[in-house]
């Protein structure tokens, strides 16, 4: 199906730091373009351009209020894309917590010479 295509557009949308920051902002509630532009040193047209990319990827939609036209996060779509990242992150965090413990142990031991193997 178009699942692959959709994923492509989602990850392309997520590749940009400003767009990730917009999503993070929308995760705490819907906001108008003006409100979204505030924290960024960017013009509203520039923000609108980013929003268009996010809308095309299905990550952001427009709310009912015709005047404010608030944007809202499509959490389900974002969830599909980040589910994997979250699982992968947990797997590696497990590895790295074991590494933390190992490093603590190595720190208390006298250093072994690094030339032998």
């Amino acid at each position, binding site marked *: 199906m178009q699942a692959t295509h959709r994923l492509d557009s989602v990850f392309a949308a997520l590749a940009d730091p400003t767009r990730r920051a917009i999503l993070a902002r929308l995760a705490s509630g819907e906001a108008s373009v003006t409100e979204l532009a505030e924290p960024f040193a960017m013009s509203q047209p520039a923000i609108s351009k980013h929003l268009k990319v996010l809308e095309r990827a299905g990550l952001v939609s427009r709310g009912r209020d015709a005047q404010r036209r608030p944007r809202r996060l499509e959490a389900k779509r974002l969830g599909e894309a980040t589910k994997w990242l979250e699982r992968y992150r947990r797997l590696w965090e497990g590895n790295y917590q074991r590494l933390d413990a190992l490093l603590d142990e190595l720190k208390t031991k006298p250093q072994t010479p690094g030339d032998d*193997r």
Partner: protein
Amino acid sequence: MKTADSLKLTTPGERDLVMTRVFDAPRKLVFDAHTRPELVRRWLLGPPGWSMPVCEIDLRVGGTFRYVWQHDRDGTKMGMGGVYREIKAPERIVNTEKFDEAWYPGEALGTLVLMEQGGKTTLTYTMRYESRAARDAVIKSNMESGVAASYERLAELLASTPARGPA
């Protein structure tokens, strides 16, 4: 206590997966833990229930490494390996990597960078796949796993990516 959320994972660009993590140790030790088999096999294990019976490392440019993991209960094996392309101890390693039964086309190129400051080491590991399709195949293959992300953690994950990083 160390927080379980200190690992940052991002997908900048079209072909990359990047992990960043800080360790409370000098980078010499972190480097050793990535390059000495007797140390690697103690932590690079993945999900619970797996061990690493094979861990061979020929640490020189053009040398190879070979890892095999085995599930303790059913004996399932999973192997991967690659070739070292660049080694600059104790700060940088570049190597190719490929799973024996890779579900994505081509090899990935892994770049490990260790930066030390004030006795702590920041690890950045970048995996670059051959194409966007390959990276997305890696991602998509894991999507049915049913581990739902809580949106709070999600927001954290998103917020933790720098708003103005290097391109």
